[in-house]
């Protein structure tokens, strides 16, 4: 600032001198005064440019030093990719489990339908008294067998329907994973906006305001291949851990 005042004073002095020299007709001296004024002006410009460059450098440096940014780039984004791949895996498995259960169940239903239709026909003949005793005895055995098989088939269908039920658990887990990735994307978006603002601003702006680092205690479903910290590997390990604590 003091520098600037000195330069201004000199410019005023020089301008006065220039005016006198022009009025006196002293062209050489006037030219020299003009050159000096131009030089002074350039000095001011260079100083201004230097100041701006320093400011930008500092802002970018503090942006860079933000550990969160580095963390996002190095760990969280690759993590997020892995999580989304895991989502694809889970939905794929669930779909296939369901389709298999359906493919196994439909023939069972068809068998029941066919058998029941045939028996119904023959039963019809019996009730219309179109059946002989010997054939009727065979019919009795067939009905008996059918009823027994019905029991088995119904159990099979039930168990496959249960598989379909359990296969839907992917939705909860993938939903949680996707929510987390959405949060991360929002944070990256924020940081990009800040970067744009910093590099576009003339005045020195405070670096991206410290994001309130919410202590996320809940971590969501464990995704193999991502940073997970100290997680257990399944229900058996949960049970072990709890009984080791005396529960």
């Amino acid at each position: 600032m003091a520098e600037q005042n000195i330069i201004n004073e000199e410019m005023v002095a020089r301008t006065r001198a220039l005016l006198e020299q022009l009025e006196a007709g002293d062209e050489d001296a006037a030219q020299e005064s003009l050159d000096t004024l131009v030089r002074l002006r350039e000095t001011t410009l260079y100083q201004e440019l230097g100041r701006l460059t320093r400011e930008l450098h500092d802002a970018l440096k503090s942006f860079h030093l933000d550990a969160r940014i580095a963390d996002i780039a190095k760990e969280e984004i690759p993590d997020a990719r892995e999580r989304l791949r895991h989502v694809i895996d889970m939905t794929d498995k669930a779909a296939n489990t369901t389709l298999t259960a359906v493919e196994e169940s439909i023939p069972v239903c068809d068998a029941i339908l066919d058998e029941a239709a045939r028996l119904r026909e023959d039963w019809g003949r019996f009730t219309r008294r179109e059946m002989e005793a010997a054939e009727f005895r065979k019919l009795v055995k067939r009905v008996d067998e059918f009823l027994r098989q019905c029991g088995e088939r119904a159990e099979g269908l039930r168990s496959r329907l249960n598989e379909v039920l359990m296969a839907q658990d992917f939705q909860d887990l993938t939903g949680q994973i996707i929510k987390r990735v959405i949060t991360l994307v929002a944070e990256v978006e924020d940081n990009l906006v800040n970067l744009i603002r910093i590099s576009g601003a003339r005045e020195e702006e405070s670096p991206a305001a410290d994001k309130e680092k919410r202590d996320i205690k809940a971590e969501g479903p464990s995704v193999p291949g991502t940073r997970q910290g100290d997680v257990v590997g399944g229900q058996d390990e949960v049970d072990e851990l709890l009984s080791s604590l005396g529960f």
Partner: protein
Amino acid sequence: MKILIVDDFSTMRRIIKNLLRDLGYTNTQEADDGTTAWPMLQNGDFDFLITDWNMPGMQGIDLLRSVRADARLKDLPVLMVTAEQKRDQIVEAAQAGVNGYIVKPFTAQTLKEKIDRIFERVAAS
């Protein structure tokens, strides 16, 4: 036996409700968060609470703590069914007084075993 199922994902609530029905527990109600579950627990004379951990309004661990701190509800059996499986969290839940901890994805068999065990203990005490 009146059971409250708490999870922010409706698909998970549905799965658990169906599994409980298979095990013979047909009197169930649902809540989508700790905050909605709390008034239900206070007014509803439930015998059993099954809750997730990770919920937006009030987390399962906080719901558990509130239950244990409440004079009327403190002995309510609580089973956590959750995707959270860090050791610290399991220990935290145990110390907060959870009766059972199941990690997702789980099987119908596991749910049955844990519920049976909880009720055996309740009957014994």
